[in-house]
Every structure is written in C-alpha cells, then in structure tokens.
C-alpha cells in the first residue's frame, strides 16, 4: 500500500490509502486534490506528491476506494489502562441529549480509566495565545498574522508550499499536545513510572493528526471517531456514574466549529475553513496583504473539525449542538488567569518540536536550470489542448507539462496530442 513509503524521498508520510481493487481509475480524486499529489497510473490512483491528509480525494470518490488510516483499528481492550484524549468534536456527535460530561463518563463505562478532557486545555491555550500576541505587539515587526497551529493539515501545506510562512506559526504546543503532556505527567506520578511509558489513545476527527503523532516518535495510538462510535453510544446509555470530568466553559467546546478558536481571542482575527479558501488566504499572507490581522485561524475541513472525515454526525447538525453548548456553558473563561500566566512565564506552553519545511523536488538545480525547465513547460503547454481532461494521468495540462519535463510522464500519453500525431503531424524531439 501507499502508506509510509515515500519518506525516503523527503516527502512526508501520509495516512490516506487507495484500495486498488475498488479504484477504477476515474479522475475525480486527482482533480479534487488541492496539492496535485495524485496521478492515475495503470488505471489506478496513486499518491505521488506531498499529501497533507485533507481527504478531499476520499470525499469525492464514488466507489469508496480511498480511506484514512488510523493506527488502532480497534483492539480497544489493549488500551483500556491507558489515558484517552478525545477531541472536543466527539462531544457533539451523540445528539442533543448527551452533554460533554456524559460522553467522558461513557468512555469510562467503556473501560477507559483515564479520560482527559481537551476542551479545558483549549481554553488555557486560548489565553496563552492571547498572552503571546500581547507580547508580540510590543516587538518591532511582529510576524503577524500568526497562523493557528491547531490543524495539522494546514501545517503540512505551509511546510510544503509556503515555507516562508513558517515563522508565522506560534511556538506554542497545541492543545492536544498539552493535554497529552499533562496526562503523561499525572499518570506517571500516579503509577510511579517515567512519562514516556504512559501510552495515550487519541480519539480524532481526521487522519491528519496522525502525521504529527508519527513525527513525535512516541507510542501514541490514534483512532477515528467512527471506529468507536457504536460502542461508545451504547456505553453512554448505560452510565451509572455521576462524577464530574468536564470543566470547560462554552468557548473551550466551540473549537470544533470554524471560528471557535478566535471566538475567545482578544485580537484582530479571521477564521477561514475549507482547503481551497485556506490556500487562497495563505497566498495573500505570503504577499503581505494581511499584515493588519493579528491571528489567522485556518481549518482544512469546511466548517472546521466538525466536518472532519472521521466524524459520524452531519457537520451542520453538530454545529448547532455546539452552539447550544456555548449558550449553556457561557462564554466566560473558567481558567485561573494568574495561574496560566505563571505557567506561560515558566515556558509550559512551549512547543517541543520545530516545524521544518518539506523539501521541494528540484532544490538541487540552479535558477538557470529551473528557468529552463519552466520554459520547456511553457512550450509543451502550447501544444496541449488545455481541456484539462485528466486522461493522461495528470490533473491538468500544466501539471502534465511539468510531469513531462520532470521525466515522470510521456508526452504521448496525451490522447489529444496522439490524435494530432495520427493526423499527420510529426513529432521530433
């Protein structure tokens, strides 16, 4: 399978898989891919370029041949003793009758002894972000707009297509990393073992989170919401416990919606969702057109994480449930601000890992050579029909021309060109 194989070429590992028996080589996924990473080779879709796990391909595939992969295809019994960190998106998946606390209790009922609530951490993180922005305002030439580091697919886009924007990513650990760190330190204290020995199970709305986990090198397992949905739903209906596991206010719960992250942020900010819109905005940031904005929230899925590929319930219905939570739990911060300030000063929020750019393919040749290549691309493009039919196996004519120049495709795989050749034109090259 395609998973994991391209790491040697400097491409990131991805967690999207093509089932070659189901794929019939139609061009829909290739056309949908915002990174132009898919090619049709020998009648099957193959992921050849930088894949960011946005799952646009899986959403358009009419045969269900493309799937996201998660590590724990659930032998849940193995994980019961471990910490479980569900995304706050999970809370909205079970209809209006169940509150976040019920869902955490349901996880306990399923047998997970240590469910850790992420929504409270998001509130703390939101305040830390505000402190960081305040700090930056005092500096000369701050890297505004800061770009939210929460969506891992956005990070991959920036690392591969906009490496000059990496300095706009705040050096704070994401809420998920923070909650895992906290879970590790608490449980290691409890069990008297080193924090690295504590295994963590993430319940996530998308496979993109896997990338960050794989790079972190720890032994965490990741499972999609859909994989545990039925069992959790059954467990929630059988709760016989009344302890309180959920502490956050409404703002912490709203991070699943697009705009949830900036809702509690006291800064000039914009929220963008959807992969094409995100790329459009990043292009603008790169041109320096958005420097009057302080914070940019980008989410690859339309409507935010509620629209993630591993979710079960409809994104618009769950959005309404989250909005109800916000009304119910209120928008005031429930965190101890002085304590968070102290943590911030101690460097508790600092990200452990630096995000590195993804190496582009022709980095080794000189500007001369690259201009020459581009020139050949333009001249090939002149011969192509410009209908972007995708029959050659590349998503559009320009990409096909680039593939030909890079030696990845043969000029004769363009059916239109072949037709013209048959009609008497001669190809010399």
């Amino acid at each position: 399978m395609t998973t994991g194989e391209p790491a040697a070429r400097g491409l990131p590992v991805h967690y999207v898989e093509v089932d070659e028996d189901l794929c019939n080589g139609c061009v829909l996924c290739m056309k949908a891919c915002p990174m132009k990473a898919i090619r049709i080779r020998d009648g099957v879709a193959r992921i050849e370029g930088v894949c960011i796990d946005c799952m646009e391909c899986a959403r358009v595939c009419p045969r269900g041949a493309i799937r996201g992969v998660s590590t724990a295809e659930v032998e849940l019994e193995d994980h019961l003793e471990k910490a479980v960190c569900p995304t706050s998106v999970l809370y909205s998946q079970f209809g209006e009758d169940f509150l976040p606390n019920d869902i955490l209790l349901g996880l306990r009922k399923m047998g997970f002894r240590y469910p850790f609530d992420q929504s409270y951490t998001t509130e703390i993180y939101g305040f830390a972000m505000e402190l960081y922005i305040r700090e930056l305002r005092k500096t000369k030439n701050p890297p505004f707009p800061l770009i939210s580091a929460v969506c891992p697919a956005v990070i991959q886009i920036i690392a591969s297509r906009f490496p000059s924007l990496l300095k706009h990513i705040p050096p704070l650990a994401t809420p998920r990393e923070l909650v895992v760190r906290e879970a590790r330190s608490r449980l290691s204290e409890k069990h008297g073992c080193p924090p690295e020995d504590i295994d963590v199970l993430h319940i996530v709305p998308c496979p993109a989170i896997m990338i960050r986990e794989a790079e972190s090198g720890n032994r965490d397992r990741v499972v999609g919401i859909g994989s545990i949905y039925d069992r959790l739903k059954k467990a929630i209906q059988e709760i016989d416990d009344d302890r309180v596991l959920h502490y956050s206010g409404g703002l912490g719960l709203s991070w699943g919606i697009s705009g949830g992250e900036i809702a509690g942020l006291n800064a000039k900010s914009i929220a963008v969702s959807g992969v094409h819109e995100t790329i459009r905005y990043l292009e603008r940031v790169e041109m320096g057109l958005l420097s009057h904005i302080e914070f940019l929230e980008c989410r690859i899925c339309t409507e935010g994480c509620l629209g993630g590929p591993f979710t079960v319930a409809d994104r618009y219905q769950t959005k309404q449930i989250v909005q109800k939570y916000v009304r119910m739990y209120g928008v005031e911060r429930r965190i101890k601000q002085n304590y968070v300030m102290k943590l911030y000063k101690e460097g508790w929020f600092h990200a452990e890992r630096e995000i590195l750019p993804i190496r582009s393919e022709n980095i080794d040749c000189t500007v001369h050579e690259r201009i020459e290549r581009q020139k050949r691309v333009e001249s090939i493009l002149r011969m192509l029909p410009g209908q972007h039919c995708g029959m050659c196996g590349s998503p559009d004519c320009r990409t096909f021309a680039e593939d030909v120049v890079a030696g990845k495709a043969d000029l004769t795989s363009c059916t239109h060109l072949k037709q013209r050749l048959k009609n008497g034109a001669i190809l010399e090259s």
Partner: protein
Amino acid sequence: MTGMARHAGIASRNPFPGVSPSGLRIEPVPLMPSVERKFRIAANDFVNAGEVSIEVQGMLKKIGFPPALTRRVSISAYEAEMNVVMHGGDGEMALLIDPDEIVLECSDNGPGIEDVELALTPGYSTAKPEHQEMGFGAGMGLPNIKKNATELVVESGKGLGTHLTMRFEVKA
C-alpha cells in the same frame, strides 16, 4: 512622461520561441533561458481580482527566487492588477523571467492617467468611493510599485490607456 510611446517590449517578440509553426517541434533551448507568460485582467471583476498576482507569485516560487524578491514582484503585480480592475478597463499582464531580471508589463485600454507625476504621489487617489469602501484606492498603488520595483516606467495619457513596465533586478 505623458503621451503614448509604446516601445518594443515583450509584446513584439515571438511569445513562444521554442515552438515551431507546426506547433509540435521543440527547438533546442537557447543559452540564456527565459520564461514568458501572459494573463488577462478583466475590468471590475473583484471576484477574480488578485488571481493574476497569485499566479505570478506561484511561478516565481516554483523557480525558487528568494522569498523577499518574490514578495516584491507579486505585490507590484497585485497593485498593478488592482489598478486595472478598478480603473483600467480590460488589460493584460505579461511576465518575463530571466535569470538576472524579472519584467512585468501591464497594459490596459482604460481612461489613462492625465498627470503621471501626480499619480505617483503617495496618497493621491482617483478611486471611487465604493472601491475605497472595499479597502482599495488609498492612493498607494503606483507609489508602492515604485518602492518595490528596481525600475518603473509609466506610459500613459488621457484616453490612451496605461502601460506599466516594472523591472526587478535579480541579485545573485
């Protein structure tokens, strides 16, 4: 620099020198490689405004020019493009990339600029109020290009359209 004095710029060269008239033969690449592309700009099309400069930016990034230079070129392209969209009527942007120089030529068939010196003054604007409401037309377009480009030539006159030539030196 009033009056219409279009010199032989990119437009007069063979746009695709590598291709023979039959359209199928690729000639050997000359010693000094250069890439040319042309883009159309439609008047009052605020939905697609900015697309041309994004294309320009993508092209420069693909070739791997330094980010600072890429930003200077693309911001100039953006300002020129917005000028065409707001005032210019329909227009065209041509991009020429040489290893040591990038040239943008932007021409339109709009009303033209009566007093070029005045138009180059920061803050001077003839934008309509509705454009200013959208955040454009602060009178910084041409001055901004002048600031970013190594050389800017404005050829225009009342009723004659406008032709901008922007040159950017590529330092090795």
